[in-house]
């Protein structure tokens, strides 16, 4: 499988995502510069963490206008799997590919630590080999990860089961104390209605090897590899994505 890692000026987790795809999972990987419009045959796209375009105006606000985002939108429209991590999640929100918006963390501090996440949905290409209720320990690193959606939107995404991960305690129980940024409904990851576009604040690419303090991020990559190789009953038909 071929991973396309999109590189914006200011991206700083692009090499981590590329390394995870290529070196940890032995897949093909390509960097895709934000001014390009060729996805180079990627089967899955990752919008990595960082500070795209310096996060000027709002996090992710300028990246929405990068030339690569046209093809990204079209790829998503064909059902191709797209994962936004941290700043990549913020870009997907600003692009309207995912619902909601990000606010400053409730405590105003940049939070850089491991958090616990409960898997809520397993019918997305990035969680399909996880099991519902599974608790993952994955690091975060962000100042603006306080997920917000207006009441009506929140109702819709909960009803549509678009909340993919929630911040919890180590036992998978949601509580204010274990919510690192004040996200509404403890939301750490959401997907679109079609479920092929997922945005998450935690960094799975930083949790793929024991040396880095944990391997719970592997399930995100293993899921999309499973989705792309086997198709199967869970999630959308992804085989068409690259065409």
């Amino acid at each position, binding site marked *: 499988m071929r991973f396309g890692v999109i590189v914006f000026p200011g991206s700083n987790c692009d090499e981590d995502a590329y390394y995870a795809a290529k070196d940890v999972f032995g897949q093909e990987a390509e960097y895709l510069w934000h001014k390009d419009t060729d996805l180079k045959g990627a089967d899955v796209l990752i919008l990595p963490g960082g500070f795209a375009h310096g996060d000027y*105006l709002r996090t992710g606000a300028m990246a929405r206008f990068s030339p690569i985002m046209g093809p990204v939108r079209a790829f998503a429209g064909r059902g191709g799997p797209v994962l936004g991590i941290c700043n990549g999640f913020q870009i997907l929100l600003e692009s309207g590919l995912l619902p909601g918006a990000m606010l*400053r963390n409730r405590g105003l501090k940049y939070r850089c630590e491991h958090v616990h996440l409960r898997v809520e949905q397993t019918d997305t290409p990035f969680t399909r080999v996880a099991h519902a209720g599974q608790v993952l320990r994955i690091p975060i690193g962000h100042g603006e990860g306080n997920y917000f*959606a207006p009441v009506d*939107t929140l109702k819709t995404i909960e009803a549509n089961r678009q909340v993919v991960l929630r911040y919890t305690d180590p036992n998978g129980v949601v509580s204010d104390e274990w919510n690192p940024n004040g996200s509404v409904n403890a939301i750490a990851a959401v997907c679109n209605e079609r479920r092929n576009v997922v945005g998450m604040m935690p960094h799975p690419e930083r949790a793929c090897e024991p040396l880095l303090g944990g391997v719970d991020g592997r399930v995100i990559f293993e899921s999309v590899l499973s989705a792309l190789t086997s198709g199967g009953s869970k999630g959308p038909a992804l085989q068409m994505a690259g065409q």
Partner: protein
Amino acid sequence: MRARVFVTLKPSVFDPQGRTIAEALHSLGYQNVEDVRQGKYFELDLATTETATARALAAEVADKVLANPVIESYRIEVD
């Protein structure tokens, strides 16, 4: 013409920065400052002499770029 665009978080959206500033002011003794909302301010120089055109252009730019309608609202002044 010049348009001034003021962007703020919607009243329903918690503003942690504004809250922190308000608490700082309270700690300095400014108890009469009841609340603070932090926002952004933009000055747009527009190649038009029509007030209505300027206002419409500023609103379009604010809708598309300057404000995120999910969390923010804006106010425009033109002169």
